[in-house]
């Protein structure tokens, strides 16, 4: 049953010239006066860059904020693992950067599948993010003159990436966390840790329109269920790369909050847009639990190559002479070279390995890896310069592989990393369930079909510090304070649903663990809906996933009870949702009969193997609406209009 009344998809993009939209919109939204803000309660789910920044900023404005995370501290959200940096259009390097150029690069990088107005706003606020982060004590890298340093990232020909060694995400998150702490101390933010949102509560207003007015959570220590009511709900719960089982996400990253919200009425946009990051440490064996990313910034100083001949693949790389190496990115994309965007670099690595030219130990019979070689940079700049820039990454690589990247090229291979798809939101970051806002990776908004490096941190903080706090007031002012309380019957109904679901997970007397089921799903998704897709494979996945789901519910074993700390139960609930979301991803990938960004359909490629878009049929956002357990979801579209930038074939040659 759908709780929200379906209504037309209106992105509510302000009128006027692109450059003026955001400022004009800010000046026209309804405001909540300072003395009235404390009458509103806003629930923020998730405490990564977007969630922590939003909770802290909304608290600072005077709203009552309830912030939740599943970890034992908000500082542990997976934004912490972002390494390389954050983009901004400061043009401190005087190398031709501008808001206009960052906007242009991001639209092009996303392969013309994002909204111009959103992306322009992102580029505009990027500079304020850097100002704010420096002011709160983020120790960005600096030059000897005391000014901020920049590095280059994929998909750009300017140096606009600000960084803090290889730990930029950590430092930005700790900055947002420090601001969150300030508000917790001030009493404006109530922080609840070790709690997981298991469902959204939608309450109908007098006109029968459903509004998001609360959530149901489970305490991960005691198992206690709790209902929380608020005037608005903000989901900042990250992406769903863990649908692939092996990904660079943290083990606990999950799609439950956004998937439950989807099933309560929120449209899910572009679920098939997933990013496979080109520079991860290759798989080492069958019992591996996750993959580890090596920052894309390494591509600034490393050259990617594979042996030209299959018979060289087992050799020590030092024994392969220069003439027998294929620096394939430099060869195929001479103007961007090793800094080609992520989707292109990933597919090129897959292609090389598909041709039998992969390196490193064979896993399940295949060598899946290419070299990332720092020899030239070490010769030019010295090992110390490499250590200053990437010391922690080289150390991490060594601890995992037992190999020294200063003397032997790193082995890398693509891995699932980020999801551009997510819940659909309008220009105010509100989903099509009124009162439900979605920020950061959890929404679909700004990256189109491919995200550029160092843009995730930018978007998370833009949403959290600057955009949401300036737009959520419009909804709050229009609806007025005074949310329903948790004794509203809608809460009891949702709680009942959540409790029966947990009972069902615990009742199975099967033989297989949730982890085994998750792994089986991941293999199907990586194989059929990963770096490259085709109609046949997607059709097979759409057959297989319902079977896996049936096996899950009939053969699952979850030990223990719901009234205790139970990691197996947590995982089972998350896997159950991945088993549903994965099907929507495949449906979306099948329906999008074109290649764009991270979505590569083998049927739609140029003669030299590049992605071929179909702007006539697919220059739109695909928005899926849930229509009940037994009905096929409905595919709606939001057309994309390109006025400032002409649609063009994306070339990095």
């Amino acid at each position, binding site marked *: 049953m759908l709780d929200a009344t379906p209504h037309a998809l209106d992105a509510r993009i302000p009128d006027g010239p692109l450059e003026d939209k955001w400022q004009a919109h800010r000046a026209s939204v309804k405001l909540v006066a300072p003395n009235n803000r404390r009458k509103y309660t806003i629930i923020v789910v998730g405490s990564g860059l977007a969630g922590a*920044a939003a909770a802290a*900023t909304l608290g*600072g404005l005077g709203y009552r904020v309830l912030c939740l995370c599943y*970890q*034992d*501290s908000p*500082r*542990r959200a*997976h934004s*912490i693992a972002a390494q390389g940096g954050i983009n901004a259009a*400061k043009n401190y390097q005087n190398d031709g950067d501008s808001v206009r150029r960052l906007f242009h690069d991001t639209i092009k990088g996303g392969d013309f599948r994002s909204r111009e107005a959103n992306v322009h706003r992102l580029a505009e606020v990027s500079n*304020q993010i*850097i*100002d*704010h982060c*420096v*002011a*709160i*004590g983020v*120790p960005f890298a*600096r030059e000897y003159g*005391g*000014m*901020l340093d920049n590095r280059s990232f994929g998909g750009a020909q300017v140096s606009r990436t600000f960084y*803090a*060694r290889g*730990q930029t995400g*950590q*430092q930005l998150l*700790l900055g947002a966390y*420090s601001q969150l*702490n*300030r508000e*917790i101390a001030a009493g404006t933010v109530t*922080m609840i*840790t070790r709690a997981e949102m298991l469902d959204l509560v939608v309450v109908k207003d007098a006109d029968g329109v459903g509004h998001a007015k609360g959530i149901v959570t489970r305490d991960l220590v005691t198992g206690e269920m709790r209902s929380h009511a608020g005037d608005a709900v903000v989901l900042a719960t990250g992406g769903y790369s863990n649908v692939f089982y092996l990904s*660079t996400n*943290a*083990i606990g990253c999950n799609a439950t909050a956004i998937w439950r919200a989807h099933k309560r009425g929120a449209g899910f946009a572009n679920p098939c847009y997933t990013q496979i990051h080109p520079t991860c440490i290759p798989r080492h*064996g069958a*019992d*591996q*639990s*996750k993959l*580890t990313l090596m920052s894309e910034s390494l591509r600034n100083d490393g050259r990617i190559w594979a042996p030209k001949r299959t018979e060289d693949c087992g050799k020590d790389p030092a024994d392969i002479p220069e003439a027998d190496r294929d620096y394939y990115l430099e060869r195929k994309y001479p103007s961007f070279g090793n800094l080609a965007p992520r989707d292109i670099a990933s597919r090129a690595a897959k292609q090389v390995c598909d041709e039998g030219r992969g390196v490193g130990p064979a896993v399940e019979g295949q060598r899946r890896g290419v070299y990332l070689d720092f020899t030239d940079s070490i010769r030019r700049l010295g090992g110390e310069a490499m250590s200053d820039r990437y010391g922690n990454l080289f150390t*991490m690589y060594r*601890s*995992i592989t*037992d190999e020294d990247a200063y003397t032997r090229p790193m082995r890398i291979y693509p891995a699932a990393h980020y999801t551009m798809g997510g819940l659909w939101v309008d220009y105010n970051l509100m989903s099509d369930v009124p009162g439900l806002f979605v920020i950061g990776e959890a929404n679909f908004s700004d990256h189109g079909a491919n995200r550029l490096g160092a843009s995730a941190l930018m978007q998370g903080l833009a949403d959290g510090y*600057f955009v949401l706090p300036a737009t959520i007031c419009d909804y709050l002012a229009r609806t007025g304070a005074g949310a329903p309380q948790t004794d509203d019957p809608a809460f009891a109904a949702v709680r009942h649903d959540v409790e029966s679901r947990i009972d069902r997970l615990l009742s199975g007397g099967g*033989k297989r*663990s949730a*982890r*085994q089921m998750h792994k089986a799903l991941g293999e199907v998704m990586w194989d059929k809906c990963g770096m490259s897709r085709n109609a046949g494979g997607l059709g097979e996945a759409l057959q297989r996933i319902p079977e896996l789901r049936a096996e899950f519910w009939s053969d699952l*074993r979850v*030990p223990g009870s719901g009234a*205790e*700390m139970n*990691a*197996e139960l947590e995982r089972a609930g998350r896997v159950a949702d991945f088993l549903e979301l994965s099907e929507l991803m495949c449906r979306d990938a099948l329906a999008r009969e074109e290649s764009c960004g991270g979505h590569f359909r083998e049927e739609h490629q140029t003669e030299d193997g590049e992605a071929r878009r179909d702007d006539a049929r697919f220059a739109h956002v695909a928005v899926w609406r849930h229509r009940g357990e037994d009905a096929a979801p409905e595919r709606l579209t939001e057309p994309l209009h390109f006025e400032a930038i002409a649609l063009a074939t994306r070339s990095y040659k």
Partner: protein
Amino acid sequence: MNFTLHVWRQNGPADPGGFETHPMRDIDAGLSFLEMLDLLNERLVAEGASPIAFDHDCREGICGMCSLTINGAPHGGEAGLTVCQLHMHRFRDGDEITVEPFRAGPFPPLRDLAVDRSAMEAIQQAGGFVSIRPGEAPDANTIPVRRATAEAAMDAAACIGCGACIAACPNASAMLFTAAKLAQLNSLPQGAVERDWRTLAMVGAMDAQGFGGCTNHGECEAVCPKGVTLDVIARMNRDYARAATRKILGAGI
């Protein structure tokens, strides 16, 4: 590789707890320590036994969630590594390995290897921030910061808040953890404005949460997975002396 694990089991805070022994056979040297625990848990689930509760999340050494004491050393005692980055190739075939939680008075046990570290949060909430709103700040390059100052601030800011320093200290002192945040914020011009009250507030919270004092054992520095060094404590003591003196003399802090 083959190992014998002695794992601490404790079914909730009220249970006295004790060790349980599990043989591990044919373990791939490429597995991380936590992946080996995953395998053990899979086996326990299959046998109908209760799996071992332990905290973990990112598994790449940065979130600070994992908190195991291996053979008596927090994170296993390998320099620069959290336990999630500890791979089995660092052990010898046939090793007996003891696995315990991070033990410290202010870390009440939750279950098995998981403990409650919220006392550390209270220290950060007391003053680990700069008081400024988004949108107020001047252009980021308005105030130059010496490169060495920025680098030293980054060295301290690398702390992942895991609590290994506290678990390793015979006094359960949180001084390395507290001083790392103070060193970062107090040394940067942007944070120096609030140096005095921040230092008094965070040190006060540290004491109020029941963490002990520093008696210069240096165990904290030895186990810190991010290489935070003892000199931050010296700096904190100096900042504290300055702030306390100014307070006594009635100077505005």
